[in-house]
């Protein structure tokens, strides 16, 4: 009986000390960007266990300090939100399973890495295709542009689906940014709308404005599934819902903890929010279907 009491007391002490330690799951945000905060909100809602939350606040110094600290504490799993947090995980947390989200460059950052699950920074390409047709019902010829190396595109599936939808899809899978001007120029007279998939190297922040300029010059609208291009130069977009991104990250984190990383190399898509840019539409003399204007987020 005495023995049992000692064991019980010891267990209580040990459990108590364990609960005093920082949780071994870490959510790292890159900055105070409101969209990243919404992702964190979605994660908090859905993740069932305890986790520690760190904000790098956009600081490279903090990135290094947090990286060094986590390297020592060796978390069981890290969920990174934004590119800076993804970089920290890549540089400092070798062999730690990672779920990344809202990180357009992370496909490049984690190239060749294992134990990594991506919540895509774009919505599902099939959902994008359907939204594109709904927004531009009269535009039948679509020019799709993406970088071959990092964009996870099932071009056969998209081609088949677009044929069934009565669309003519011209696929431009590019190897480098240097191919972009020629291919874009060739396509502007042959398509009615430009559909862009953002990737870390080709259709990236260093070239998207070029795409917008060339498209506007040719009188063509741009459609995408990414929030940055969606808010700036695209006429319409279907960016992922940030709260749902957080929810998906929580689901994937739970799966990894339960079974280990099972979806390595494949992207998980959050549901998209239709966004219409009326400013760009005005320049292009476009109008959107009235029913969509009621449902969509409008940029004036």
């Amino acid at each position: 009986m005495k023995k049992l009491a000692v064991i019980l007391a010891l267990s209580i002490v040990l459990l108590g000390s364990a609960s005093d330690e920082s949780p071994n799951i870490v959510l790292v945000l890159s900055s105070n960007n409101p969209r990243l905060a919404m992702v964190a909100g979605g994660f908090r809602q859905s993740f069932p266990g305890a986790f520690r939350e760190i904000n790098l606040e956009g600081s490279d110094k903090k990135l290094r300090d947090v990286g060094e600290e986590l390297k020592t504490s060796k978390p069981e799993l890290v969920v990174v939100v934004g590119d800076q947090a993804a970089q920290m995980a890549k540089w400092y947390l070798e062999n730690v399973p990672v779920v990344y989200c809202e990180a357009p460059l992370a496909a490049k950052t984690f190239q060749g890495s294992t134990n990594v699950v991506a919540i895509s920074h774009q919505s599902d390409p099939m959902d994008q295709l359907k939204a594109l047709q709904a927004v531009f019902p009269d535009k039948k010829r679509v020019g799709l542009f993406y970088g071959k190396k990092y964009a996870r595109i099932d071009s056969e599936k998209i081609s088949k689906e677009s044929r069934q939808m009565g669309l003519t899809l011209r696929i431009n899978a590019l190897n480098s940014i240097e191919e972009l001007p020629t291919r874009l120029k060739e396509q502007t007279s042959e398509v009615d709308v430009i559909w862009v998939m953002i990737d870390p190297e080709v259709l990236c922040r260093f070239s998207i404005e070029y795409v917008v300029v060339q498209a506007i010059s040719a009188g063509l609208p741009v459609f995408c599934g990414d929030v940055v291009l969606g808010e700036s130069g695209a006429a319409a977009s279907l960016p992922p819902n940030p709260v749902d991104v957080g929810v998906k990250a929580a689901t994937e984190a739970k799966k990894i903890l339960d079974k280990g990383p099972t979806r390595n190399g494949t992207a998980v898509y959050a549901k998209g929010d239709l966004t219409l840019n009326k400013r760009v539409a005005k320049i292009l003399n476009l109008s959107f279907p009235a029913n969509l204007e009621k449902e969509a987020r409008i940029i004036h």
Partner: protein
Amino acid sequence: MRKSLCPLLLISVVFLPALFASVGDGRAGDMMAKPGTDKVVLKSYTVSLKGYQQTVTVNATEKKLFDFLSRPNNLTYPNMNFKEARPALGHDEFGPGGSIPYVYKMVVAFPTRMIVLKLDQQKVWQIQYDNPDYKLWRWELEPVSDGVRATFKTTYEVPDWAELAYLALNPKYWDKSSDRMLAELQARFDPSEDPDKLVAKGIRGEGYQSVIQVYEASVWIDARPKEVERAIADPNALSPLLGQDRGGCLSRTLPQDRVLYCLATMDHEGQAITIENFGIDHSHGLKLRYRFYQIALDLVGKLEIVCRPQRRGTRLVLTWKWEMPDSLAPGSVERAIFIARLPERIQEAASRIKQKAESDP
């Protein structure tokens, strides 16, 4: 043998120069051209551009860092050596338009020059020219709780002849030099940091590839180069591209043997833009060359005007290069519209120069 050579010689002497002349400028029949009949020919193409970008936090006040970066000889690539800093012509003290000759070494030493443009308290742009043809350093500063977040971007044109040399030497050469320079900047304002450790701990900027878009408008003018030069100096001639002169020294007559470094402010459809005039370069025979850098809406452009004598007249070539902006900031739609109209503007400028030169007595 001699007989068989004669027709070949005749062909070579009489026909080949004419053939090359017409191929060279993309038009035949200049000899027959009448004033005003030639059309402006527009070409567009791209050239390779390399870039690097990284953000670091510097333990300094915004003003301190701004002042420090405004004198680029305070901070250089490890192998770069500034010779002197001097104010630009027309300026009493070092400031916007400051001109700094320097030398950088990569196997051999390249003499070149850097111009500093301070756009506002949070932006310092440093334009280098000559080697390579298009090179720009941009600093953007943002105050944060633990100092200033400094984003350094550099872009440089890689001419075809240099591409192989870059690859053979070290394709990451400039990226690594930039990493090191940023580590030294952080350590300079925080003595507890060591540049070697900072580089080892993760200052690894993002190197990238991009392209420069080039528009080239070419036209034959029935006037001598001197007359074309006068037409170019007319304030209306380049206004489709550069706007109206608000002040500065663009309209100043430049001595032939001298390069003038100066800044002017132009009004372009309500937007104030800064232009640097690199003056006239007569070093290439009878070529006349102006260079301008335009900075508007965070957009860098470069206009080069070349006039060369061609068959009793002048061939005028306006070349406009612009770098794809690397972000979609607010205002990008306006910028996109501005860029989209460049081909039309450059054609209009070439037409105006032609008209003016051919109509003047």
